[in-house]
């Protein structure tokens, strides 16, 4: 049954053709271009590589990207669970409208989201004005970045949890009820464990997206070196200085981290599926 085994002829037609095109297109658009990161990083040698990716400014940008993405993912997990719960369980006017709008952050170009938040929270903006009076600054701060990332990650969580919540059998909850559990106990002991894999998967996705996000963040971040400069922006500024090797070194670290995160996630999912089947 091997990929290149000739003995077993396939019954349905078109395997060679479709597989060939798939591999070709995947290589041309994804694999070969992505490998450029490696080809551009390797020639620079180990020491310059370490030097490039451990420069204080770069380290600060990694730290910022990770911490803001993490906070945003956690916030999304809560807000997403809440939204999914309300949309699946309750009935109220306008529900379908809100349900549809969950996808807006996904459909809205990130740059538009970026300028919106930057304007909303600017010292003269709708929200910024009030917040400034209370001495809270959102713009040019990590909080601003978190807000933009919460927006970006939100649909991932809701859309992953919704179907899982929908297919939880009412009967399981009713059974828990009949056995004397309170609503809260049922939620904590029955529903939450059931939703946990989806919650973990989706917030990890939101986290991974958050680390790489660019368009929605740069407007509100202010991009102050060492303070509000995110990792993707580091790549951008290295590129602007034609430091290709440096840019790909920073990118390589970011890529390896995202990939290993997704690999771990895949592993967890497979393990989960085996456990419950």
């Amino acid at each position, binding site marked *: 049954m091997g990929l290149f085994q000739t003995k077993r002829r396939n019954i349905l037609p078109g395997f060679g053709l479709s597989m060939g095109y*798939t591999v070709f297109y*995947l290589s041309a658009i994804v694999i070969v271009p992505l490998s450029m990161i490696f080809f551009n990083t390797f020639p620079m040698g180990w020491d310059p590589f370490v030097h490039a990716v451990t420069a204080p400014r770069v380290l600060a940008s990694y730290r910022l990207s990770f911490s803001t993405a993490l906070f945003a993912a956690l916030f999304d997990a809560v807000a997403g669970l809440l939204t999914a719960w309300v949309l699946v369980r*309750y009935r109220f006017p306008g529900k379908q409208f809100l349900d549809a709008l969950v996808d807006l952050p996904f459909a809205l170009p990130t740059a538009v989201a970026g300028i919106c938040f930057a304007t909303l929270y600017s010292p003269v903006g709708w929200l910024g004005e009030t917040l400034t009076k209370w001495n809270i600054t959102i713009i040019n701060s990590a909080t601003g970045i978190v807000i933009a990332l919460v927006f970006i990650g939100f649909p991932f969580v809701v859309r992953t949890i919704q179907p899982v919540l929908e297919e939880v059998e009412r009967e399981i909850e009713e059974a828990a009820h009949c056995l004397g559990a309170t609503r809260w106990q049922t939620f904590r002991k029955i529903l939450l464990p059931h939703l946990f894999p989806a919650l973990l998967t989706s917030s990890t996705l939101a986290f991974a997206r958050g680390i790489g996000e*660019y368009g929605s963040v740069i407007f509100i971040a202010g991009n102050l070196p060492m303070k509000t400069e995110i990792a993707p922006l580091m790549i951008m500024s290295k590129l602007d200085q034609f430091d290709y090797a440096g840019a790909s070194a920073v*990118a390589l670290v970011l890529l390896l981290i995202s990939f290993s995160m997704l690999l771990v996630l895949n592993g967890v999912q497979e393990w989960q599926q085996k456990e419950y089947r």
Partner: protein
Amino acid sequence: MLKQPTPETASLVHKRVSDPLPVQIFLIGLMLLFFIGFIFLPLGLVFAQAFQKGWSVYLESITESYAVEALKLTLTTVAIVVPLNAFFGVTAAWAITKFNFVGKAALKTLLDLPFAVSPVIAGLIFVLLVGSRIPFGSWLGEHGIKIIFSTPGIVIATLFVTFPFVVRELIPLMEAQGRDEEEAALTLGARGWQIFAKITLPNISWGLLYGMILCGARSIGEFGAVSVVSGHIRGQTNTVPLHVEILYSEYNFAASFAVASILVFLALLTVGLKVTMEKKFQKNSSHH
């Protein structure tokens, strides 16, 4: 005869399994607060800013030649990217769902790869591809084919970013549908292309369209990757989101938000289409 539940008993049953009303109101309120802060305020802001200087400025901003050029470039990109990725999506989904082969799981993971890549990196790799010392890039350069800082660069970066959308919609759909119908067609004497055109394609048409809409929405809005490869040459390599950025950084907020309002409109359209499609989807899969 089975007794139909009366409204009273029905609501009793309903009450027992759902949350108390105060809890419901509290949670709905909390969610609304989130929606106001993160969805409604930004949306409202776009239109308020776009029209702050009146209709004429709005119209002027979106009909100005750079804006029109940007829109043309964006639409061109969408028109190239969506069909290419849709064709690929169908082909790859066919190969993956209709046959067994070693390495299927790995291939599926590779298809998702672009999701894990930051848009900026997506742009960077194409700059590296062409700018680097590898033979292919220099060959392109010598033959006068400019990829970076030109339309092809924007297209190819967008291809990368939107690569998984169609195929990701199709694989679960086609896996759920199985191979039975194709095999039945085979035993009835159909040829490969007949099976594809008459059986498979109609069965996946909604899923395909759905994936194409998502792919299209992303192509219109892609910013980071395009920003890296475009070079920001006004009237030539500026897509709509890039144009919004430039106007914004020039403190021309009214114009920036006016152009952005087009994107918002398109995003709302996408969301609307998505909902409609999902309803179609459910209808068509209800008996399965």
